[in-house]
């Protein structure tokens, strides 16, 4: 069932992506079926999974390497899968109203969104590290394509490439880590590794690698800069991938590994310090933004840092609060992105300095949704975000790990900042435009964007998904007990004791969720957070002046661009040295290396064998004479054409040798190759000067003669020695024996080509194809093409008369 579900994502996704142009806007509806089916399935297994029973399915993949397509639904997977399916469905529904109906990239978007949903499900359901990695990379690729959905815009393409380079680099490092851990554990099954964690230096190195992969995916400092760049994507993409689901993949992985490995030395210092830095830096950057979407993006970076800290600690209570925080974040962040999309869609801008006043009953509804979701982000009571944040503070205060006081302090500070940027979001979107119009406030608007007087009211459909998500936020905030079952199952499924025991149910389960736990430390910290947030927001003018000093730190994108251009320069220089363009040098290096390098062996072990019989029949003497004569003549002649003919003569001489030794197949092949290649040689030679040029100095000529001599002597020695030193039976004997029974053919040469070494042949014809295309491309570059419409500028006028000619 699980495999079928993923296959369905693949089939429908590829179908819409490939052939959806005819569907147009309806592609979204076809795509919508898939997350709805996933949701149905997850609801169907909900009771079973939250009871602690685990749904698994395994298919064979690469049995020789111990790699299996293993899928597994436990509590934590269920949370993530629900998020993917629910937000996927909401986003596809939202897109129906968001995109212009005539937008021809709709089918592409819908197909990629479905493919991404499948890949993301693969990440969270995989129980095999290699399966997980494959799905992980698929999410990177679909993310790349989705960020570049408006591929005609250079900015979108650059942002897409940035995201791809960073996340796939991290993915490769992660793969290395997975292999290290898999080898140390003796299995690639995630559940087995976590239940019985291996240890040692290899494992430590592997864990660091996996953390780097998770950091790049979840936009942690110093890899964060791709995420704000990814805001070049259409808003539905940002809501789906870059806030709700994909960026949580790294968090997910850390959450999986932390309970088993948190006490391994570098884990907690590494993960917690990276998370803490990301939290604060992301929140500070969010405070500086004028673009609502960028504000949310930097806010996402900050929140992801928070999640990394919570999951990275690895204690049951911290993981439990992480799960709640994760659910709350999915709900409010997707809703907020959708709201920003509504504003962008109806006003044409996201810059708070250029927004129009949005009034009217429908805008009021937008404001209610925005205020509730942003308040949840800020951690205001009676909303989901508050439940998560208080659970987190409680877990941190009671956490028994080093430096937890510092972590608590940083979390309080960054939560206050979160409150402040949430307020900035609301104030900027809805309050500032009014104040600007009244003239109460004035800002420097660097853009020449005029303030449209009023924005058109949004449609109900566009607002509906955000409203539903916000309703869930409120429901969870008011009645957190709704989540007890799901969160309990998720945090128990992460608990190493559960993993070892194989079933749920402990006396010391983390406490149930509640609105009010009494006047605990966490409660007072929440009060401090809200008071601090209000204070920062009230002092926004001095704070903004202070934050402006932060611009001395270059943004991550700039560092990325510098690294990229440095890499380009390096590769250009290396290429300039290695590929200098001289054919004689290429050829000389290749043949001398191929023959002289193995010849070094003979310097140490030279054992001249008995002289083998050089000839077996009289006919070989004249053939040898022909070959030798033609070879010398080819080397001595000054005419290219003559040289080519002499080379053919050498080839035909070889064919004659084969005939004499009784190998008609080889002779036939050799003769045919010689014939065709001679004809083709002549075609090319017509374009070259008639004679070889005499520019070569005695030194270069001497070097050429030396190279030729080295190659000739080395090949001769190999031929003699290799024949005499054979100890194993030649493989050809076996091939001849097996040709008819296994290959169903009497022509051994053909059976080798198409059966025994068929894969080689397949590779060779692929190379031939590439070479053929390259030949035509090089020969015809700058000239008009076959069938002729495309011309270069220089030839355009002269060939205009014949441009109607068609091929054949």
């Amino acid at each position: 069932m699980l495999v079928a579900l993923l296959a369905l994502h693949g089939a429908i996704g590829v179908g819409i992506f490939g052939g959806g142009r005819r569907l147009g806007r309806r592609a979204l509806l076809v795509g919508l079926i898939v997350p709805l089916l996933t949701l149905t399935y997850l609801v169907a297994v909900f009771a079973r999974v939250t009871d602690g029973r685990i749904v698994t399915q395994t298919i064979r993949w690469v049995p020789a390497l111990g790699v299996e397509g293993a899928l597994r639904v436990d509590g934590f997977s269920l949370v993530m899968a629900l998020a993917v399916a629910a937000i996927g469905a909401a986003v596809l529904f939202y897109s129906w109203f968001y995109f212009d109906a005539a937008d021809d990239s709709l089918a592409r978007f819908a197909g990629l969104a479905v493919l991404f949903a499948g890949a993301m499900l693969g990440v969270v359901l995989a129980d095999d590290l290699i399966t997980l990695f494959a799905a992980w990379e698929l999410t990177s690729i679909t993310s790349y394509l989705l960020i570049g959905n408006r591929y005609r815009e250079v900015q979108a393409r650059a942002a897409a490439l940035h995201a791809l380079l960073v996340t796939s680099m991290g993915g490769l490092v992660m793969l290395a880590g997975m292999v290290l851990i898999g080898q140390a554990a003796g299995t690639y099954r995630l559940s087995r590794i976590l239940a019985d964690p291996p240890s040692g230096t290899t494992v430590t190195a592997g864990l660091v690698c996996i953390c780097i992969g998770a950091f790049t995916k979840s936009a942690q400092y110093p890899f964060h800069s791709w995420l704000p760049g990814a805001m070049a994507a259409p808003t539905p993409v940002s809501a789906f991938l870059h806030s709700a689901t994909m960026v949580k993949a790294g968090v997910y992985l850390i959450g999986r590994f932390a309970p088993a490995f948190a006490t391994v030395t570098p884990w907690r210092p590494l993960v917690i310090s990276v998370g803490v830095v990301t939290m604060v830096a992301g929140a500070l950057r969010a405070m500086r933004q004028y673009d609502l979407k960028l504000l949310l993006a930097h806010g996402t970076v900050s929140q992801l840092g928070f999640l990394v800290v919570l999951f990275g600690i690895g204690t049951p209570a911290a993981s439990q609060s992480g799960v709640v925080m994760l659910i709350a974040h999915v709900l409010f962040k997707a809703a907020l992105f959708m709201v920003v999309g509504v504003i962008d869609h109806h006003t044409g801008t996201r810059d708070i300095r250029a927004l129009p006043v949005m009034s009217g009953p429908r805008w009021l509804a937008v404001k209610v949704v925005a205020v509730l979701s942003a308040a949840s982000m800020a951690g205001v009571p009676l909303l989901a975000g508050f439940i998560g944040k208080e659970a987190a503070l409680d877990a941190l205060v009671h956490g028994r790990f080093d430096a937890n006081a510092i972590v608590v302090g940083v979390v309080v500070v960054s939560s206050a900042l979160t409150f402040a940027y949430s307020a900035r979001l609301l104030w900027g979107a809805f309050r500032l435009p009014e104040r600007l119009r009244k003239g109460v406030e004035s800002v420097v608007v660097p853009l020449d964007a005029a303030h449209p007087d009023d924005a058109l009211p949004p449609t109900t459909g566009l607002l509906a998904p955000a409203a539903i998500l916000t309703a869930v936020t409120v429901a969870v905030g008011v009645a957190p007990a709704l989540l007890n079952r799901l969160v309990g199952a998720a945090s128990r499924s992460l608990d190493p004791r559960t993993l070892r025991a194989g079933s749920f149910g402990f006396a010391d389960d983390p406490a149930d969720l509640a609105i009010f736990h009494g006047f605990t430390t966490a409660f007072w910290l929440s009060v401090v957070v809200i008071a601090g947030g209000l204070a920062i927001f009230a002092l926004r003018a001095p704070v903004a002046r202070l934050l402006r000093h932060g611009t001395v730190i270059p943004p991550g994108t700039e560092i990325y661009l510098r690294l990229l251009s440095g890499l380009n320069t390096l590769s250009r220089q290396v290429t300039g040295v290695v590929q200098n363009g001289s054919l004689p040098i290429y050829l000389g290096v290749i043949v001398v290396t191929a023959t002289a390098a193995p010849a070094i062996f003979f310097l140490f072990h030279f054992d001249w064998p008995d002289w083998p019989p050089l000839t077996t029949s009289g006919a070989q003497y004249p053939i040898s004479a022909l070959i030798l004569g033609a070879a010398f003549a080819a080397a001595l002649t000054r005419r290219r054409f003559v040289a080519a003919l002499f080379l053919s003569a050498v080839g035909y001489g070889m064919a004659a040798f084969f005939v004499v030794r009784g190998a008609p197949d080889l002779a036939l092949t050799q003769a045919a190759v010689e014939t065709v290649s001679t004809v083709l040689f002549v075609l090319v030679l017509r374009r070259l000067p008639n004679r070889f040029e005499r520019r070569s100095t005695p030194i270069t000529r001497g070097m050429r003669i030396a190279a030729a001599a080295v190659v000739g002597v080395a090949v001769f020695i190999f031929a003699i020695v290799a024949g005499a030193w054979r100890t194993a039976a030649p493989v050809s004997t076996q091939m001849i024996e097996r040709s008819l029974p296994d290959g169903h053919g009497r022509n051994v040469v053909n059976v080798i080509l198409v059966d025994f070494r068929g894969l080689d042949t397949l590779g060779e014809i692929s190379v031939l194809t590439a070479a053929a295309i390259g030949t035509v491309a090089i020969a015809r570059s700058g000239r008009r093409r076959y069938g002729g419409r495309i011309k270069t500028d220089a030839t355009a006028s002269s060939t205009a008369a014949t441009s109607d000619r068609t091929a054949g």
Partner: protein
Amino acid sequence: MTIRERPSPEREVDLAAVPSRVTFYAVVAASMYLLFAGHNRPGGGFVGALVAGGAIAVRYIAGGIEDVRHVTRVRPWTALGLGLAIATTAAIIPLLSGDALLNAAKWQLDLPVFGTVGVSSVLLFDIGVYLVVVGLVLMVFEAFGDDTSDPELTAAASPRPTEDGRS
């Protein structure tokens, strides 16, 4: 040795067209024989395609690239792509029944004229190889052959300085 003057199209038809066509079909028939008989007797897709390449060369010498295009009908890249697709398909098919890549199967067929014929599944693979190699030859003619309809090529065929002196 000088650059060969290309004969005008009228003279080509008079002198070389008819014999070259007869030769062409005879050689192509021979190459087909090599392709189909190749599994048990000397031959095979690769050799067969090279022989067909020789036949194409004959047509080129007689009628230039236009004649080659006319007689082969398929475009070179179509032959290449089709060949690669057929070969890949033939290689993958055994995987579907759980066998190894390129695993050979053999069937006995009773055909009306030829009698009982053994057909191996690798024949399909060989046909793919054949098409790729024929496509390659066509591509080279396409790349370096004279294009009688294109005055640019005449200029391009004139001698140019080479990189030969560099070493």
